[in-house]
């Protein structure tokens, strides 16, 4: 049973931050042409760093030394990367990779 109050707070904070990035620039800069170069630069490069951060975050519980040594994750990631480079289709890669991972966890590495 999740802590629903905490969940709601997290939801509101994250939603608030997203709105901040979508609406605040208009509120602040909507009537002037002066947008700081540094802000524009960060807005451009940070999203490119964020995906790597999120990928590592998702794998935070994996240990190379224990459990399944990260082998199922490695195989499923290879499926995602190969299928995406081949078909360039997000849905296909996500469904395929997840299916392979679930089969590996539930039937192979039990």
């Amino acid at each position, binding site marked *: 049973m999740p802590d629903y109050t905490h969940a709601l707070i*997290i*939801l509101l904070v994250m939603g608030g931050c997203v709105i901040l990035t979508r609406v605040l620039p208009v509120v602040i800069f909507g009537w002037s042409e002066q947008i700081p170069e540094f802000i524009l630069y960060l807005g451009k490069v940070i*999203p490119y760093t964020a995906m*790597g951060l999120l990928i*590592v975050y998702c794998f935070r519980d994996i240990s190379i030394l224990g459990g399944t040594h990260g082998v199922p994750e490695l195989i499923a990631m290879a499926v995602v990367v190969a299928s995406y*480079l081949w078909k360039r289709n997000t849905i296909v890669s996500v469904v395929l990779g997840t299916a392979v991972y679930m089969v590996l966890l539930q039937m192979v590495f039990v």
Partner: protein
Amino acid sequence: MVTFIVLGIGFGLLMQKHGFGPLWSLASGIIIYSGTVQFVSIALMSTGSVLMAGLTALMVSARHLFFSISMIGRYSTEGPRKWYLYYALCDETYAMLSKDDTPEGVNVSGYRLLVTLFDQLSWLFGCVLGGCVGTLLSFNSTGIDFAMVALFTTVFLQQWIDTKNHIPAITGLLATLVCRLIFGRDLFLIPAMIIIVITMTAMRRRIEAAEPVESAEPTHEPAGGDGDA
């Protein structure tokens, strides 16, 4: 549109498996309305700290800054409804409306509102549907969380393909990995973010020499985008 619904279903399903029903998915689609942020929020809703959640959301959606700024000129005549248009300006909607190819004889203002609304409604429809499917179907969901990292990986690959300069992508990956090893599983995210911002600031000249930041008007498709909401 199909991508929106299918990813929405995946999100709703995942939420359900983490103990958050269709109404939570609907609330998330209204409060956050950003695919990537919503997917990360599932993990953070049960264990994350408020600071970590806020910083993660800011980092992932920093690109919206550009979308909104480049629409200021177009939306200046929209009146109060422009606040809805900005709030719901996701990657897909931006990609459609920044092309300025309103069909002949169609009211531009109405077209913008309809496209924006239709995108959000199809996303919400997917989220709720996924939540309902998750409630009805009972199956062994062990490993379904992989959908999250699979989605981020496809975005990572698309960003890699779209850009010549890979310093930001490599920095994000390496800094986070090193911080995970040094700080442990509960504390690494914030140090990683700090290192990333410092590194990007320090390497600004090099990165801009390779790919200069143009005006607030991106000429390309939203490459920094996440390909969904």
